[in-house]
């Protein structure tokens, strides 16, 4: 198994209440040290609720945000400095909001040309041929190229966003909630397109979403994020079917499923990020919490086979 992506203790802190001179008033640990490994050709699903740090993690992985600590390795090469152009040829990003990720004052052709020109110095006929090839890959008609972004529906705009990401010929695609803004009937079209493209271009995906069912349907492996930390990882078919971390269990119970009674806990919220609790961040909502949980942060450890959980008292399957 060759690794496409490896992060070692990747972390990010944000300063809160910056002053012109002197230290900031506080710090928020958006992402606690995270170590992830993604194999070549694999789809790693990342789930978590708002504020769990999944977008911060994604932005660090593509170089849009410099990490506070830790290293990123792509196919064995270290990429630590945040230089999006250096990252761009290896790893690309598909944005959540398809329409706002396209500059409203440029034609689709101009948008598509940029990565080819900037990253590969392509010109003239080769450029046109490559754009036509990419548009064909995402099932869009070539006459769309001379239109402006506002003329497209969400599903079409997201295809354009995917085509732009593919234009950089990346090895890895980070898909940050790529279908959350789309209607269900269109969502399935885009998900299936992504599956086809992955096979065709031999890509590795990081699929970030809050929708558990979608993540489960597209991923090989899933990592569950809570409050900036990975709390559980494992094969897609096992993580929600037999969750080991109580938070994963809560997530799985909360997802609305036809024919299942209303579930989940009746209350409970994320801790205050400016004033995080000592120990496990989930302890205050956890039915299994003990004094140990409130004192000591649990480390991610192997529970059984390829299921890992960061919990002092993991659930039995």
């Amino acid at each position, binding site marked *: 198994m060759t690794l496409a992506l490896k992060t070692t203790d990747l972390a990010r802190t944000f300063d809160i209440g910056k002053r012109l001179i002197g230290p900031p008033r506080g710090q928020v640990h958006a992402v606690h040290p995270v170590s992830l490994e993604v194999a070549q050709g694999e789809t790693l699903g990342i789930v978590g609720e708002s504020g769990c740090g999944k977008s911060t993690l994604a*932005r660090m992985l593509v170089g849009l945000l410099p990490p506070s600590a830790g290293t990123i390795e792509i196919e064995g090469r270290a990429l630590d400095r945040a230089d999006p152009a250096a990252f761009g040829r290896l790893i*690309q990003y598909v*944005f959540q909001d398809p329409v706002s990720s396209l500059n409203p004052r440029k034609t689709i052709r101009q948008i598509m040309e940029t*990565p080819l020109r*900037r990253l590969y110095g392509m010109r003239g006929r080769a450029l046109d041929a490559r754009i036509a090839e990419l548009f064909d890959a995402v099932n869009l008609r070539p006459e769309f190229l001379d239109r402006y972004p506002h003329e497209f529906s969400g*599903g079409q705009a997201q295809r354009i966003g995917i085509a732009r990401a593919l234009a950089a010929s990346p090895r890895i695609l980070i898909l940050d909630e790529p279908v959350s803004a789309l*209607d269900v009937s269109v969502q399935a079209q885009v998900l299936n397109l992504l599956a086809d493209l992955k096979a065709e271009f031999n890509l590795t995906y990081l699929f970030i979403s809050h929708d558990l069912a979608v993540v*489960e349907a597209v991923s*090989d492996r899933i990592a569950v994020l809570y409050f900036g930390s990975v709390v559980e990882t494992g094969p897609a078919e096992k993580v929600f079917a037999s969750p080991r971390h109580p938070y994963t269990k809560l997530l799985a119970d909360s997802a609305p499923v036809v024919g299942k009674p209303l579930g989940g*806990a009746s209350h409970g919220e994320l801790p205050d990020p400016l004033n995080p609790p000592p120990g496990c961040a989930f302890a205050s909502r956890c039915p299994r919490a003990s004094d140990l949980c409130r004192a000591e942060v649990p480390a991610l450890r192997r529970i059984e086979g390829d299921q890992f959980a960061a919990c002092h008292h993991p659930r039995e399957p």
Partner: protein
Amino acid sequence: MSLFLRLLFRNKLAGFGAVVLGVIVVLALLTPFLPLHPPNETSTANRYLRPLSDGHLLGTDHLGRDLLSRLLWGTRLSLAVGFAAALIAGLVGAAIGVMAGYFGGRTDNVTMRGIDMLMAFPYILLALAIVAVLGPGLMNALIAVAVVNIPFFARNIRGVTVGIAHREFIDAARLAGMGHTRILLTEVVPNIVPVVVIAMSTTIGWMILETAGLSFLGLGSQPPQADLGSMLGEARSALITSPHTSIVPGVMILLIVMSVNLLGDGIRDALDPRLRSGALARPMAATRVDRAQVPPAKGDALLDIDALETQFQVGRRTYKAVNKVSLELKPGECLGLIGESGSGKSVTALSVMGLVASPPGVITGGAVRLEGQDLIGAPYELLRSLRGRRVAYIFQDPLSTLHPLYRIGDQLIEAIRVHDPVSRAAAHKRAVKLLEDVRIPNPAARINAFPHELSGGMRQRVGIAMALANDPDIIIADEPTTALDVTVQAQILALLDELRQRRGLAILFITHDFGVVGQLCDRVAVMYGGRIVETGPTQAVLDAPAHPYTRRLIACVPELGGGRRILAAIPGLPPAVDQLPEGCAFAPRCDKAQDACRRGEVTLDGTTRKVRCLFPEVAP
């Protein structure tokens, strides 16, 4: 461009301003070719001639110079200086603003504090100081006026740039390998040009005034050169004896500045996309009603929506957002209304209480009866007394439905006292009780919180508490959990279900999520292209959908526990409701469609289960 001109001239005042300014500019441009006296030719014999005297249409000034000639030459100069100052201030200010806004952090802090210092001086004092350093003269006055106005542009443009610099397409450009300079020039600047133009068009008048002010004080144009300000300044001594020498340049300044400002406002309105979409037109208090006939009353449902038709009439286009929709709601019942975006589900909900914005919304047919009383076309006072008291709404985004500047307690108390004139103390007590009912921990303290101090889930609980404030019979919940996380969504759904059971509420629940409908609703209605395509008891519809659209939509939704799989998709896009196909709206995407589906009207048939399909999956 022609759209822009049309929008501009639709605003009559702006059109008037454009014409006046146009005439002045043309005159100023033609001045050198007009048969005028030389502007600086003195003739002491003809001092202070009245207007309309022989050879001097507007009379002469204290040195006997022809006022008309001086006025036109002066206007030419004043306009040129004003435009030049606006251009310089606009370009320099925009450049500073773009830099500060794009780079942020320390760059932003240092530049903007510098700008703040410039703004701390009274502008005329600052201009005087600059002229004092540079020496009097028209060029130096121009520089002074430009410098004084740079902060206005810099601050304005910085604000806009900050908004753009955090948009996703800027990130995309960085990932595509673009450097900062290129991103600034090709991604940011094209998006702020309209703002710069708007700011310039509204400030040129101001700059002409300021230049005139400096010239009036003798710091601008030097004698004998005429500009409007110096003409006024020279005429000051004869204000009483020969008022026309002051009035002539004064009226010109008035005309220029007024026309520039009217035109500037017009340009702003025409360029601003928000204003263009009709935000300037204040929506009416209730949706406009224009229906040919009222369907006869029938049945005794709590809420009876009968063949409701709501349209949006934009220009020549008519969007049939809601097309003959009929729904019934019994006391204590939860009805799910499901559909994709643009299917008309929200418009249906808003039409019930006449909350669709008019213009462009019009209710063109049907009736909505609350216990037999028709609400469509009801007087506004009646609608107002029912809104919130009998029928309450919960909206999708609690952050935008709560007022950010008032404490949630005050907003709850206001909601209570609108319909029930109790004392503030009593209302406060009820508000605490409401927060307790929606399971907000520590309600007595949280009642003093501002909306931004609460999490999304807590805010939605406040939204629900507000809907419950007057013990309504019906709650219309428009995607109340779409913006929330799954664990919080589960909490809110459980709360709604419990409130329904305990208070006997009827809920019209609008969503796009079959899972939610399956858990919460007794009956479900599926909408597509503005019409109901299928309705029936939730379990029956979900187990055996009769309409191909329902069946395939359910198949599109992945369910947790299914493992990795290829998802079923529906090819194509939902139809635009301004050009619905004849026959079944789903026919172009349907794999069972036959010729008959594309002709005539397909009716909604059945008794408890109804389906609008010629070839249903199962017999309804």
